[in-house]
């Protein structure tokens, strides 16, 4: 049979089948996350590896020595692997990991909005069928996931390991379900806060490297200044614990301790016990995060209105 000759259009009419908004946003977020983890971003990968090594190394080292632990009811033993390592998780999150965590947040979040603003492709994203909030969420997801990778994930591995040591019994998980929840909440809390602050800096300073530097300096500079100030005031006897709320790191740490329900104690100087009302802590936190969100939203709405 001979086929019929036919001519077709060079460029045909096209109607795309489009997915819903949530899936667009999720897709954008996931692609951004994968791009952050791609081999081009060597620094990010190196930092992630460093944090993982730190966490797991900490765990392995501590499991041999004695570490303050609250004894479990079932196993009457002071062995680290058998005790409820609340303090461990806290120390881990607030010790060495903290430095790398902020650095990682600074490096990974700084480019996301800043790059879009410098090459002005933000306008193109905003003219797509997603709202401004959708765009922000899509830019927030990659950093959030990346930070989750280094906050919650290693701790979960430690948790699973402990469960394994305890004989893989379901009862163990049942008895420690709050610990599991705490690990997840702490991880997502840190990730969310740092990514929101990082994105704010990325929007405010639309140069990638400067934004990263400013974020790092802001978080650490304020922490150091306030810590010194706090010490000076403590010695002169007129100290007020509320001053700690002015530093982002300390604020987040205090809330972190609340989440784990341990006695708030703090900083490299080993000061113990602070006296601040819960409502003040959470009030300041909500104020900071809220103003960050509003600021980013305002900046982007400015870009829409002007040229």
């Amino acid at each position, binding site marked *: 049979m001979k086929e019929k000759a036919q001519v077709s*259009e*060079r*460029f*045909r*009419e*096209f*109607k*795309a*089948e*489009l*997915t*819903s*908004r949530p*899936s*667009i946003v999720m*897709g*954008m977020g996931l*692609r951004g996350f994968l791009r952050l983890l791609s081999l081009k971003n060597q620094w990010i990968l190196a930092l992630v590896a460093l944090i993982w090594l730190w966490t797991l190394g900490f765990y392995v080292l501590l499991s041999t020595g004695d570490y303050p632990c609250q004894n479990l009811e079932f196993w009457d033993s002071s062995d680290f692997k058998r005790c409820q390592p609340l303090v461990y998780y806290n120390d881990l999150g607030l010790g060495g990991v903290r430095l790398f965590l902020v650095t990682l947040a600074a490096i990974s979040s700084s480019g996301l909005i800043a*790059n*879009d603003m410098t*090459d*002005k*492709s*933000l*306008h*193109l*994203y*905003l*003219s*797509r*069928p*997603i*709202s401004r909030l*959708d765009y922000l969420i899509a830019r927030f997801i990659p950093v959030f996931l990346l930070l989750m990778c280094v906050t919650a994930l290693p701790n979960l591995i430690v948790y699973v390991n402990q469960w394994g040591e305890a004989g893989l019994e379901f009862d163990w998980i049942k008895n420690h379900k709050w610990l599991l929840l705490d690990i997840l909440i702490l991880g997502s809390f840190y990730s969310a806060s740092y990514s929101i602050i990082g994105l704010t800096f990325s929007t405010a300073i639309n140069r990638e490297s400067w934004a990263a530097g400013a974020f790092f300096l802001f978080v650490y500079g304020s922490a150091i200044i306030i810590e010194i100030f706090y010490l000076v005031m403590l010695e002169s006897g007129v100290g007020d614990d509320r001053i700690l709320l002015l530093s982002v790191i300390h604020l987040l740490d205090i809330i972190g301790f609340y989440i784990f329900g341990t006695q708030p104690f703090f900083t490299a100087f080993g000061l113990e016990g602070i006296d601040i009302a819960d409502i003040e802590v959470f009030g300041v936190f909500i104020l900071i995060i809220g103003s960050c969100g509003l600021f980013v939203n305002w900046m982007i709405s400015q870009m*829409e*209105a002007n*040229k």
Partner: protein
Amino acid sequence: MIEARNVIKKYGAVTALDDFTVDIPEGKIGILGPNGAGKSTFVKIALGLIRTTSGSITVLGEDLDRNTVDIRRKIGYMPEHDCIPNSMTGVEFLIEMGLVTGMSLQSATQRTHEILGHLMMGEEKYRKIEEYSGGMRQKIKLAQGLIHGPEVIFLDEPTSGLDPKARQEMLETINGLTEVSGTNVLLSTHILQDVETVCDHVIIVNNGKLQMQENVKKLMQRQTDVIQVRIGGSTEDFVKQLKKSGITATSGGRGLHVPYVNDKTFEQIVDSAVKSNCQLYEMERTTVTMDNVYLEVVD
């Protein structure tokens, strides 16, 4: 296609659009107006990027007040300024834009290559955007607006900064767009000849108000009472000969302007040319140009 009813938009004390009412038909529409007349504001409102202070606007039969975001599935937008990331390749960027619009990866890829083929982009589509020339960047910008097969595409100054050849290509592409795929085009530009060559309809905006809305073909057929004549050889002889038949020619722009009385005038011009032994390069009754219309309306 787009209906605006009494749209008012204020930025603080500045009124960008002032009781703006327009009914834009389908096809290729040109929007003209001076800087700050409210063109970009109107385009941004129609895209749902900014909200009106008061008034209603309907795009493709859907009310924008209720549906600012999803309407953009049917709209493409090509901004005026350079706004494409330098670090990506052309293909990567277009696929990303397709995905952000909500297409699946397969259809986005397929569509990207189809559009780039249509825009005559060859191997360079795999190169980084930073290596692109002005014309190619402009093409990528156009392509990203077309990627999801929109029913309307807004083009904001698509030919600015392009050299004549690239401009020609761009205009031809835009012209072909409606013919091939039935996309409606809304073209905002400062170059009036672009509107003349591309558009079916023209809208002139000034001070936030609609000044004129007219069919371009009809507009261009309006004739003036001047005959443009260009002569080789001795122009003086020719003018003298014309004077003998009672016609005074004035020199204008390029060549001579002869007032049109009736069709007899043409014969007299030809006669004069023969008598003064001149070459007659050009003889035509001039028509209205976009320049005339624009300046008449705006000033």
